[in-house]
């Protein structure tokens, strides 16, 4: 049915919308085109412009921003080129942070999803409701709450001290661990829900068949269940990894100044008058490219599964 155009036809129609699709879509095209597609293109252009130290940009094309990102020419710019590890390091660290957050979410999210999927139907929807409510609470509020909880003078430390478990407060805030916790906290429902959806469609008779063939429950889990719900797992991982990579709030509020991630790096370029816009644009473009590549792989894998797979 592909390739039809609905102009003309013979009088009879099966839908009130036929022939008008393009008109109906104009608002969406207009809004998203002008306010998202074009801005991204403009940002691409800006990444090739020159920084204006009074703020903003000078319209001179240069590779300065990308050069600054990848290449180290020393403090005064006259040393032989070496790889600039600072920013690559930030990217690498963010990558690791996002990866850990994803793994963290999986380790807790998978059993949770499995558990919910094996409840009675009424109980199931209630559990899902409970799991999703926190997502609807403002991310800022949630991150602030987490910050409040784990501060040196926060309730968690106070309780641990009052129960005699520790003598001095554990410095949990402003650490990588805190960022991990924050990311995990922000995106956990995104891991649980897709996995739940996959397990819900899983045919438990497969587990019974495996048991019948002398598999113990853990082998069944790894060799039968997990492969069967792989699409949900992958979806959940992507849904946690990608936002974590570009996250700003968790690193900023929970990680403090010392633990820069990509989000903070970008934000800094646009604060006040001293920001380096082209550089910020370049970093954003690099982040966008990485994420688009990941999504492309994911889409390819999806369509391969749909066409070639079982």
């Amino acid at each position, binding site marked *: 049915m592909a390739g039809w155009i609905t102009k003309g*036809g*013979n*009088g*009879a*129609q*099966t839908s009130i919308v036929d022939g008008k699709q393009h008109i109906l879509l104009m608002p969406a095209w207009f809004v998203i085109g002008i306010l998202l597609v074009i801005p991204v293109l403009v940002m691409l252009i800006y990444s090739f412009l020159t920084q204006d130290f009074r703020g903003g940009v000078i319209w001179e094309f240069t590779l300065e921003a990308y050069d600054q990102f990848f290449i180290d020419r020393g403090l005064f710019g006259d040393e032989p080129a070496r790889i600039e590890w600072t920013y690559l390091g930030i990217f690498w660290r963010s990558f690791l942070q996002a990866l850990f957050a994803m793994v963290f979410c999986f380790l807790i999210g998978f059993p949770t999803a499995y558990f919910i999927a094996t409840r009675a139907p009424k109980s199931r929807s209630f559990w899902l409701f409970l799991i999703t409510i926190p997502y609807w609470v403002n991310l800022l509020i949630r991150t602030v709450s987490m910050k409040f909880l784990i501060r040196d003078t926060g309730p968690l430390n106070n309780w641990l001290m009052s129960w005699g478990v520790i003598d001095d407060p554990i410095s949990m805030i402003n650490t990588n661990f805190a960022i991990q916790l924050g990311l995990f906290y922000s995106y956990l429902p995104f891991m649980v829900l897709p996995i739940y959806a996959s397990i819900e469609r899983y045919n438990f008779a497969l587990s019974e068949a495996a048991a019948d063939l002398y598999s113990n429950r853990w082998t069944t889990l790894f060799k039968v269940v997990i492969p069967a719900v792989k699409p949900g797992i992958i979806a959940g991982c992507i849904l946690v990894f990608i936002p974590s990579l570009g996250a700003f709030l968790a690193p900023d509020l929970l990680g403090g100044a010392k633990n820069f991630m990509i989000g903070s790096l970008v934000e800094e370029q646009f604060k006040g008058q001293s920001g380096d816009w082209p550089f910020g644009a370049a970093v954003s473009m690099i982040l966008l490219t990485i994420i688009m590549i990941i999504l492309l792989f994911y889409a390819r894998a999806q369509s391969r599964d749909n066409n070639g797979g079982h």
Partner: protein
Amino acid sequence: MTDTHAIDIVSVTKVYPHRTDPVVALDNISFSIGDNEFFTLLGPSGCGKTTLLRMIGGFEDITKGQILLFGDDISRLQSNQRPVNTVFQQYALFPHLTVYENVAFGLKRLGRDTDFIKTQTHAMLELIRMAEFAERKPSQLSGGQQQRVALARALAPQPKVLLLDEPLSALDLKLRQAMREELKEIQKHTGITFIFVTHDQEEALTMSDRIAVMSNGQVQQIGSPKEIYDNPTNIFVANFIGEANILKAKVTGPEKSPAKASKAQAAAKDQVKLCVDLECGIKGLNIFSQSQFQKGKQINVMIRPERIQIKPLTRGRGKVNTIGGTVKSISYLGTDTQVQLLLDDGESLLARLQNTIDATSSFGVGNKVEITIPEIAIRALSE
């Protein structure tokens, strides 16, 4: 222009395009439906009957051909421009409107005046005996009630033709039978042409003035229920309506000794008489046929199970139109008894005996019997 047909289907073809495998849903179909007829499109799934109905209603494009409504070409009109209404298979009652609002919907869209809308809607509700349900919502009605509301809704705007797309298929047997009666009555009462689609041949036989039997996008035969049952044109129609025994035969020429034709053997319209020899052994039969066949041609003939006569084997030879066989099985069906026979030459035959008297007491399974096939009940089939 005395007798304008309600619907003329003129060389209608419907093709679903596809890069490699286009589907021909309707293949150059032409026929007419008269005013005030209860006309049924009958056939198995995929035969094109629903597609044709939807094309009359304006829900499918016509690839080639025309559809005329009382002489006017409606092929290019939108469905809301055709004075034709539909009773949908799933009823499609608007869930957020009451029964009254559903029935009044078409009239309101046509802009009829408020008083007329009121009287007409109430009249329709009376017709289907659901006046007291006027304020209910469809979800509060049973399947049979929804079906009646769907009917009233389609009749209210007084269409020239009413289309019914397998409206009874979702109802259970007793309800279906009751609704068949009601639909027939309403059609007679309103005088509107009904075009009815079904795959249930019993339904078609009981309700229709005429039936179009369809298969694979083509019309196999059009006729009254009796015509189609007694004189099917081909194997498909013979098998689709009721049960049929198909036998091979060879044409030996035109009818022999026509002078002996009695009144009961007067040929039906458009029928000729042939003389054939049945492969199973009976020779020299004069039978009816809708087509002329050359001498020597192999054809198929059919006979209905209830026309076969079975008698226990007796002495004597040369009985007319009789061959020998064995009883393979006997099934008691309440109103009649079904007997599977094995002819001496190996062919199978299905016979049906009405249980007026204990018809089977004279023979049992495994017995040899005499099987008589009356000439007048045999029909030659065109393929």
